[in-house]
């Protein structure tokens, strides 16, 4: 593992030379029986996996109209081929989005279309053999569901949805991925992805209060399970545990302190992340989301604010309303969702992103900053895929791009953009999203980071950039790991609220 090296930067960033089979057999660990059974999946590959997989595919085709359209609509125009960071970094032609999708499309044709049933060879239809199944496991775990390719698809085919469907089928026959499934088990059993039990969480938060007091001389609280608080903050558990994540948690606490907001964390909902989305499993997605509703009802909060977590914000912004009743859209017969709708204060966005919260306070002049405190940083911003392409912030189109940048500019003096074809809706994935942030996929993660690293290098050379801000726990962890492999300092990456924390003025307002 230690001998993984960064691929060379491309001289001209175009389609790389193909290396067929470069990433064959380099998929992740398979989930064990114990891990699978803990979350209700078959322990290991079932005997009649072929029939079960095809049946599951049929079920998904009927359930999700979009999935069937995506299977039918592709004309192989090739617009997506060079848009995928994993293809660029690995040079494996099966990591071209169109080719990765065709691993499934060819099976779809064989079993669900008349030409494929009658003349499979003529239409590129394939039987679902064990080799094909292994290929699915391998390559559908070399997609981070970042949807950059979808931006360039003239038909709007959502590649992530195909990856999710593949993983859903694989899980249904007992052929799931260790990393994601183990984490989902921990959320149900302990309450968060990390498996941080209540006492450890309390101890960590108490320690933070001491540290912040030492650093600022001010009593900043990190309250947990406080009934009657106005705001429930739901944040990725990495914010309690890892560097640089924890610096942003300190930033949120300072913002709440400086604005006099009563807030609380919850030991029950001590995780914003929702890996149910990564594996495309609606039941898991919902079950994980419901913990947040339960916590909100129990604590009687009026607002739900989400911390710096990319996919959590996609789930919160796009799916929480129907999953759990946060926001509009709860079913009429869904009693607890209706209860939560009545409880929440609808003068505010439900849910609210922490960046929306902070920016709103900055606009109202409720916060002041000593921007010079960030002068040692020349900052750029890495848009996280799920925020950029799966959600929005504020009241205007593109708010998810503007608001984090507005905050950075309000709290720091030096901000520069990276190349425009790699930011905003065209942002490159960090290389670790969608359930691949695991050591067994480190080679993939290093190679997948190539396009972002190339552009970062450019901004380092041209503008002296020494800090890349982001609002996603996965991005932060991934870059901390891969930056040194590309010759950068791992501390170059950090959160937007880390910058807020550096320069916020406390106690004045």
């Amino acid at each position, binding site marked *: 593992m230690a001998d993984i090296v960064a691929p060379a930067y491309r001289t001209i960033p175009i389609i790389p030379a193909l290396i067929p089979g470069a990433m064959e057999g380099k998929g992740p660990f398979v989930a064990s029986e114990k891990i699978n059974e803990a979350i209700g999946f078959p322990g290991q590959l079932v005997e009649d996996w072929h029939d079960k997989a095809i049946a599951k595919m049929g079920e998904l085709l009927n359930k999700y109209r979009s999935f069937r359209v995506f299977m039918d609509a592709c004309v192989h125009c090739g617009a997506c081929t060079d848009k995928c960071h994993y293809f660029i970094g690995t040079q494996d032609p099966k990591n071209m989005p169109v080719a990765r999708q065709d691993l499934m499309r060819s099976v779809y044709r064989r079993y669900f279309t008349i030409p494929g049933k009658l003349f499979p060879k003529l239409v590129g239809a394939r039987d679902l053999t064990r080799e094909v199944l292994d290929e699915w496991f391998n390559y559908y775990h070399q997609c981070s569901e970042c949807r950059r390719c979808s931006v360039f698809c003239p038909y709007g085919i959502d590649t992530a949805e195909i990856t999710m469907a593949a993983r859903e089928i694989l899980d249904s026959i007992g052929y799931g991925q260790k990393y994601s499934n183990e984490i989902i088990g921990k959320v149900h059993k302990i309450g*968060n*992805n*990390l*498996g941080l*039990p209540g006492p450890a969480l309390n*101890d960590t938060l108490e320690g*933070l209060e001491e540290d912040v007091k030492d650093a600022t001389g001010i009593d900043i609280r990190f309250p947990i399970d406080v009934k009657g608080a106005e705001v429930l903050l739901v944040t990725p558990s990495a914010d309690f545990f*890892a560097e640089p994540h924890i610096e942003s948690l300190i930033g949120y606490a300072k913002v709440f302190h400086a604005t006099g907001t009563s807030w609380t964390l919850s030991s029950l909902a001590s995780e914003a992340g929702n890996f149910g989305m990564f594996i495309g499993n609606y039941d898991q997605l919902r079950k994980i989301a419901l913990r947040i509703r339960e916590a909100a009802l129990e604590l009687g909060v009026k607002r739900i604010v989400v911390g710096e977590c990319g996919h959590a914000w996609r789930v919160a912004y796009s799916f929480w309303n129907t999953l759990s009743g946060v926001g509009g859209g709860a079913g009429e017969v869904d009693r607890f969702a209706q209860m939560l709708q009545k409880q929440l204060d609808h003068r505010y966005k439900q849910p609210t992103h922490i960046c929306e919260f902070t920016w709103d306070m900055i606009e109202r002049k409720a916060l002041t900053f000593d921007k010079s405190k960030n002068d040692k940083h020349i900052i750029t911003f890495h848009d996280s895929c799920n925020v950029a392409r799966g959600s929005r912030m504020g009241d205007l189109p593109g708010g998810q791009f503007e608001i984090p940048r507005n905050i950075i500019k309000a709290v720091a003096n030096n901000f520069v953009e990276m190349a425009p074809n790699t930011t905003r809706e065209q942002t490159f994935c960090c290389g670790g999203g969608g359930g691949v942030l695991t050591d067994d996929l480190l080679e993939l993660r290093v190679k997948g980071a190539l396009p972002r690293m190339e552009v970062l290098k450019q901004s380092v050379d041209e503008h002296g950039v020494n800090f890349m801000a982001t609002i996603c726990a996965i991005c932060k962890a991934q870059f901390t790991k891969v930056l040194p492999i590309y010759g950068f300092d791992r501390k170059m990456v950090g959160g937007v609220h880390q910058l807020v924390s550096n320069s916020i003025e406390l106690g004045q307002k």
Partner: protein
Amino acid sequence: MPNIEVAGKSYETDEEGYLVNLADWNTDVANYMAQTENITMTDQHWEVVNFLREYFEEYQIAPAVRVLTKAIGKKLGAEKGNSEYLYGLFPYGPGKQACKIAGLPKPTGCI
């Protein structure tokens, strides 16, 4: 699951070489794990490993990086209470590498 042989005894490990049964851990195992990670155990390494084990016993999880650096800083002096010092000891990341040697499960999540 693969097994490792240390001093004539067999221990069950997972795909990445982490001990499956916490109770199996002993200093021989720790030294063996360190060797596979290209680390020569010194007193400084043991300070970290022992703290990890104590913390785990109380809280059933490895400590957050910040908790670890603070504890090491208190024990060994403020100049050592930072993540650079820990990365110096455990180059692949103090969280994961030190946990492995301490016989604790690997912390996973968005970290």
